[in-house]
């Protein structure tokens, strides 16, 4: 794959902030490992309920000091806290809730995304293993009403992550609705990828230069507001 130019974009924390601002009040959301987990830092006090697939609804902020309880962790294995109205349930109930279409939005990390809304995230072939960590990712893709991807726009080595065709094993096909990166906000539509927002200081051409599929530039293209 050709090396492509890199741009200075948003930090991981600010990608998470942009995702958080897309979540409407009243949303039930599930956050995957990585940048998605950071979304929880930006929703305190808002009417957004986090589901952790380990078996918890209304997961609170990360626990510190004396609040740390080894029996109270989120799905990323971080000690968390309860909020008024938090509840617990077993794993079959948790995934019934997920597959059954009761979670509004899942936010996941990804290794590759294409313009049809396919994405790869569970296995990096460079590791040389046919097996990998699937976790709850495929269930969330199958059941969440909307799937958001939050990731860096390119690899550390400057290779495309927004690709024409996945070269890594797929997590799910045709499920991604929105893509949030350090450089852009892209909506995935039946016509292809629509560039809706660019990071401060960047142009649509800049984002296109690090994106393999052809982007449709929205008539309302704007700079991300954070």
């Amino acid at each position: 794959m050709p090396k492509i130019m890199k741009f200075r974009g948003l930090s991981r924390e600010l990608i998470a902030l942009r995702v958080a601002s897309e979540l409407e009040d009243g949303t039930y959301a599930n956050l995957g490992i990585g940048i998605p987990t950071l979304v929880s830092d930006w929703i305190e006090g808002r009417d957004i309920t986090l589901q952790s697939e380990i078996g918890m609804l209304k997961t609170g902020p990360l626990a510190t000091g004396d609040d740390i309880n080894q029996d109270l962790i989120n799905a990323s294995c971080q000690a968390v806290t309860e909020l008024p109205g938090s509840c617990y349930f077993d794993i079959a109930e948790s995934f019934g809730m997920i597959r059954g279409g009761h979670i509004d939005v899942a936010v996941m990390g990804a290794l590759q995304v294409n313009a049809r809304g396919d994405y790869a995230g569970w296995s990096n072939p460079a590791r040389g293993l046919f097996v990998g960590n699937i976790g709850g990712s495929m269930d969330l893709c199958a059941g969440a009403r909307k799937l958001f991807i939050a990731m860096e726009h390119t690899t550390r080595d400057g290779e495309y992550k927004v690709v024409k065709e996945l070269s890594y094993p797929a997590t799910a096909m045709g499920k991604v609705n929105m893509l949030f990166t350090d450089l852009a906000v892209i909506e995935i539509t039946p016509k292809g990828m629509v560039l809706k927002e660019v990071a401060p200081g960047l142009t649509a051409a800049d984002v296109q230069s690090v994106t393999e599929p052809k982007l449709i530039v929205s008539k309302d293209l704007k700079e991300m507001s954070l």
Partner: protein
Amino acid sequence: MDKVLPGIDEAVADIPDGAVIAVPGFFAAGVPRYLLRAIIKKGIRDLTLTCGCGPLLGAAEELKALVKNDQIKKVIDSYGLFRSATKGMQDPFEQAVRDGKIEFEVFPMGTMAERYRAGGAGIPAFFTPTGVGSVVEESIVTNIEANRVPKETRIIDGQKYVLEYALKPDYAFVHAIIGDREGNLRYAKTARNFNHVMATAARITIAEVENLVEPGQLDGDNIHTPGVYVRRMVKVPRPKFAITID
């Protein structure tokens, strides 16, 4: 019926080589650490450990011992490897998987949950949308190429589903914060995770409990696992876990 045994060694005394054992826990939370230590001590071999979400990453010391003693034949899980590829390369379990000495079979987590639920509820198999469009739809995902058995799919109301089978382990080890002598159990917060479904699925469920009470001392409206699913019980101290995965 009083199901409490005097010690943990008695609880695992009849487990033979080649047993299939369900191990609950979501990383560190809710792992039956004392029962794992008991089978390490007993030296049972050719074990198949059926998991749900990385309990052996949570109980890292126990996994290390099981691998070192060559006790594991196969692990089934949704998430069993280090996230970090660099750390994975130094991990004896991952090395044994790479060498084909241990078989590692992978399913989506919700499919694992439902396989136990079905196993405990008399349902032999089920169609699920999870995994459609990935290698999970095509065959069993395992490091042993010869065991990549193709899976059936079916279109129902225009949607594709994959057939997955119930899982009925020989034994389940569960960890509860409190239980009564007749096997009624309650779990703590997110340590519940796979404990209940595994207790229902196994032929013989052994519960380690941090607190043991008399029948009648638990509120009957708030039992997570009814005693009918539990065959043996042992009292254990509260385990200590590091809350971290790499």
